């Protein structure tokens, strides 16, 4: 039985008159790789900030466990990339070294072992050759890795990431989730928020659905059900299970926008390949090529 690294008991947080989170009971066991999903404004980032201690609950308790060596739990926090000032004068190596800022060293420069450790972590993450580059001159995936390096340099027991797959392309998203998987295998517990249900369904073993309170938690197959997602997002969602994979779609888009030609025609001209658009706004049904099958097919 893995001991918990984080335990929420009856946690609520209130700003002014409104409750941002209420009655949160949650246990993050050692070795977890857990995704937090929910709509915008559901309190996902607030939940992470309660985890990292930058917010204190209005009610209830947040208990942090101990690290692997029995010492105080070491946290690594990776913020949303949108929150970073990319014009700040700082290089990739300096970002990584900031992870040691809380170690009590009085001198302003980093020690040789610190710089060596930073080099090792950057190499591990595949951005060793970018150490002296300004953070603005990186791709989205490299920027994410620079901040993961800042967390890893202090050898964290728990890595907390706020939307690490936001704003990156499909390949980069896959790479980031694969990297997190490897770190988890190395013994680091991971909690991350995301809006990407298909990615978490494919990569993460456990999910927590949050909308002010916890609506469901468990494995993707237990949690990603139409009824749960309907309650979570307030919209009908389609869940398809095929070959051991879960695919989640927005039912409105799938049934109305994707299959109603009239909806497309009223919004924008039809997509066109090869031939010019008819001069008076004809739709696909008026196009002779679409009314008749190609000659090649007829000859068979």
């Amino acid at each position, binding site marked *: 039985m893995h001991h918990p690294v984080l335990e929420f008991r009856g946690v609520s947080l209130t700003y002014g008159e409104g409750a941002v989170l209420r009655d949160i009971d949650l246990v993050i066991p050692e070795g977890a790789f857990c995704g937090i999903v929910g709509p915008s404004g559901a309190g996902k980032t607030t939940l992470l900030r309660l985890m990292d201690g930058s917010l204190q609950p209005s009610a209830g308790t947040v208990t942090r466990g101990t690290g692997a060596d029995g010492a105080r739990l070491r946290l690594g926090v990776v*913020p949303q990339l949108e929150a970073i000032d990319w014009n*700040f004068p700082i290089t990739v190596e300096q970002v990584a070294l900031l992870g040691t*800022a809380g170690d009590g060293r*009085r001198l302003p420069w980093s020690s040789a072992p610190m710089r060596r450790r930073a080099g090792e972590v950057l190499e591990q993450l595949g951005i060793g050759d970018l150490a002296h580059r300004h953070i603005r001159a*990186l*791709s989205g995936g490299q920027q994410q890795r620079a901040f993961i390096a800042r967390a890893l340099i202090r050898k964290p027991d728990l890595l907390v990431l706020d939307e690490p797959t936001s704003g990156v392309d499909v390949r980069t998203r896959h790479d980031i989730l694969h990297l997190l998987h490897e770190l988890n295998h190395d013994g680091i517990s991971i909690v991350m928020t995301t809006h990407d249900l298909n990615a978490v369904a494919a990569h993460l073993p456990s999910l927590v659905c949050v909308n002010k309170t916890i609506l469901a938690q468990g494995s993707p197959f237990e949690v990603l059900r139409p009824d749960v997602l309907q309650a979570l997002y307030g919209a009908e969602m389609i869940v398809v299970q095929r070959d051991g994979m879960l695919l989640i779609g927005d039912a409105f888009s799938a049934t109305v926008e994707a299959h109603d030609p009239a909806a497309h025609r009223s919004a924008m001209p039809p997509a066109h390949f090869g031939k010019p658009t008819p001069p008076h706004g004809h739709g696909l049904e008026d196009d002779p090529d679409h009314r008749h099958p190609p000659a090649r097919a007829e000859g068979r």
Partner: protein
Amino acid sequence: MHWLTDPWTGYSFFRHGLVAGVLGGALCGFVGVYIVLRRMSYIGHGLAHAVLGGAAVSIAVGFNVFVGAGAWGVLTAMLINGVSRRRKIGADAAIGVVTTASFALGVVIISRGGSPVSLDSLLFGDILGITLGQVWILIAVSAVIAGAAFLRFRQLLFATFDPEAADAYGVSSRWADTLFALIVAGTIVATMRILGVLLIAATTVIPAVIARLLTDSFAKMLVISTLLGAAVGASGMYVSFYQNVSPGPAIVLILAAVFAVVYVATGITSRRRLHVLDGLEEHGETAARTVEFD
């Protein structure tokens, strides 16, 4: 070289003024880096105005001006925080209300004759009237601020770059913010008599902005901004001596001229670099591989 040494050897007021100009310029340039990178230029500007109220009240009641104005500056910063917590009032509006009211209070007290110090000298500085005692105070304040910034360099850097994550990494953002507020208040109060409350903001913001245009390294930005502030402080004194103009405005105008030159020069350099990158991309090189920063 006589034009350099003659004012120094011949006039004690120039010696005091030159030391104050160099130290004050360096201090403002150094602290300005943190102010600019925290995007708090407007707060620095407002606080400089606000301490006039504290200085006037201190003088009127016979209290130590430096302590009174410093405490007033810190209280003003806290008041701005308190007012801006109301959701309907933004921080910029809170700064506008609190600092302008404090500034107006200072002007009223001084203009009614409640202060032996002239309003002009507080607004525009009186670097030529600096006494040896005030120079020593400036040296002491600069040493304390430099020491604090040296010992807490990495913590201040973290809290400036990513304040949201600081606490999770063992850097107390509240402590760092308090230290930063004390540093800013100390700088404003120590340099108030040199540059005047209307011009301090320029000497904190302009060197840091110039340094930012010249480098992508935080440490180099600190060095460039500090040295630039010191150099322009000295230049302003000589320009003032030989051209018979007020030193504070001379310092600010020199800074503005340097900014204009650097802005144009770095703009041209950036365009050239883009042309080079475009050419490389046409030849199959990627831009990312060719951009190296210091």
